[in-house]
């Protein structure tokens, strides 16, 4: 959820507060009446709030608490280490490697996904039958399971049975075992990431393009603007909000990269596709070093928060230009 919605919500909530407050209260019977009036609200809220408190709010606090301890899943004593886990992360080459891979993945997939999505949306925005069909085609990977399709991609990239290598050899390129190559494994994971999510960005842009009145671009055309300037000077600026939204969402998902890596490379070869979440998974659920895993998860959270804030700031800044 883009944090820029907060302003809207605040406005609505304070409206509600103004309407709710300032009612005259009488005596003790008034308290009871108030309770009877409030009871349905609490009852309706009960299931969700119970689940959220037990499985989200409390675990968030617990996670922070764990990250400050030398917390192993199986041992009963958890000595307090303060920021020890975070300090250890600073000197952990696997963490830096995972961070680097995650950053590279995000830095390529986000522009790739959003750019491809924009190009597709603009190319397919008119409602012809062919366009509708092609939109469905490009959207289809979005509804597929990334883990399952990761298996398929693994086979497609296989040096023996993979069609991709077959085609490369046919045009005279060398046979490559992509997923075992320290050079090509991460690019392969990146390609699958873009393949999976370009349709997602496309849908965001298609929805936004519908809201741009035809008359605007037509007016520009009458004034002699060609299709290229029309796109850069009119369409793209009008899509600013959607671009921000698409970029922030793509960044958040990219930084949580896990599925296709786990399936295609398991972080290999030689940790060349290890990501923050695959590392977290190994530390937390294979080595059972809960405290250290919790620390990784908090670093991930703070990084996501930081990058999203930065993106929001950047777009705001441009808007005032």
């Amino acid at each position, binding site marked *: *959820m883009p944090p820029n919605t*907060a302003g809207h919500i605040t406005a609505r*909530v304070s409206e*509600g507060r103004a309407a*709710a407050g300032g009612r005259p209260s009488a005596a003790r019977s008034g308290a009871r009446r108030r309770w009877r*009036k*409030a009871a*349905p*609200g*609490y009852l309706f*809220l009960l299931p*969700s*709030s119970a*689940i*959220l408190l*037990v*499985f*989200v*709010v*409390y*675990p968030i606090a*617990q*996670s922070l608490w764990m990250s400050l301890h030398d917390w192993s*899943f199986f041992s009963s004593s958890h000595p307090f280490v303060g920021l020890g886990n975070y300090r250890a992360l600073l000197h952990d080459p696997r963490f830096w490697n995972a961070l680097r891979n995650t950053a590279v993945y995000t830095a390529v997939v986000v522009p790739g996904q959003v750019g491809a999505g924009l190009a597709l949306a603009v*190319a*397919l925005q008119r409602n012809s039958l062919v366009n509708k069909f*092609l939109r*469905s*085609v490009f959207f*289809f*990977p979005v*509804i*597929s*399971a990334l883990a*399952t399709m990761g298996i*398929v991609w*693994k*086979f497609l990239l296989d040096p023996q*049975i993979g*069609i991709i290598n077959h085609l490369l050899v046919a045009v005279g390129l060398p046979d490559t075992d992509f997923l075992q190559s320290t050079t090509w494994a991460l690019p392969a994971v990146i390609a699958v990431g873009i393949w999976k999510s370009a349709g*997602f960005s496309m849908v*965001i842009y298609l*929805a936004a393009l519908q809201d741009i009145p035809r008359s605007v671009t037509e007016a520009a*055309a*009458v004034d002699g603007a060609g*299709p*290229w300037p029309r796109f850069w000077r009119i369409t793209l600026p009008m899509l600013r909000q*959607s671009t921000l939204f698409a970029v922030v*969402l793509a960044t958040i998902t990219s930084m*949580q990269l896990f*599925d296709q890596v786990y*399936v295609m490379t398991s972080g290999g070869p030689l940790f060349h596709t290890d990501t923050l*979440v695959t590392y977290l998974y190994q530390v*937390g*659920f294979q080595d059972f070093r*809960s405290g250290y*895993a*919790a620390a990784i*998860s908090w670093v991930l*959270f703070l990084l996501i928060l930081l990058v999203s804030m930065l993106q929001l700031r950047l777009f705001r800044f441009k808007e005032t230009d």
Partner: protein
Amino acid sequence: MSTNPMTSRPPVSIRGRTSYLDGRWRWWRALPAATKWVLLLAGAAITVLPFLWMLGTSFKPESDVFGYPLRLQPTHPTLANYAAIWQDLPFLRLIVNSVVFAGGVTVCSLFFDSLAAYALSRLRFPGRDLAFYLVLATLMVPFQVTLVPVFQLVFQLHWLNTYQGLIVPRATSAFGIFLLRQFFITVPRELDEAARIDGASEWYIYRRIMLPLAKPALATLAVFYFMNNWNDFLWPLVMTSSTNMRNLPAGLTLFAGQYVVEHGVLMAGAVISLLPLAVAFVLAQRYFVQGIAATGIK
């Protein structure tokens, strides 16, 4: 965009689109459109390639998978893989698990989310704003942050490898509550105020007035929940260790990681696991698309 600005600019253009009647035909005028279509079709080919290969291989005998030259379609089509998947894997069990997990999360979430959304949009009680802010705050936290402690909690409840362990922690979501609340506040208050004056209970108003009005929003949210959980991988991977409790993606991945890989069988499993969403997509495409548009509600 693929079009070249130099060639795509028509010499004479009235409505911004090249009119091929207002001059003689020149081959280079068709170039931008041709480039666009070549790129689109190439992109579409790459996009569907994995699905075609998956489908083709699911009908191939194993010898065909390694056959030369490689082709997408089987030379000796067989249904053997679709028969073998039920023996080689507890495949029926995986399907049942996926249905129970994704279906359970969807049904519970829709019910609890809509209850909470009703309270947050229509009812007045002390602490409502606080509750709403809390919901919003949890929206921002990625689920990896809670994964480690929730795993421990589910372990302590003896819920690992159970349906309740998979479903209950996810039986509501801040996103769903937020989405439905945003929908509910657009419903005119006169509707439920009138019912309230007539003495209707809050439950009646929720059940008989709000829910029917919210059908499109609920359908969108249902598709969103079902798709995400049907395709989910990390959560079932953490919360289950026995093959018998895994969902389709986690179970198939386990099968793919075995020493001897039966490609055809695996692809038959992949096809079957994709089928429900593919069919739903063809029948109700707009709910899939709206689910994405809905994530952008402001």
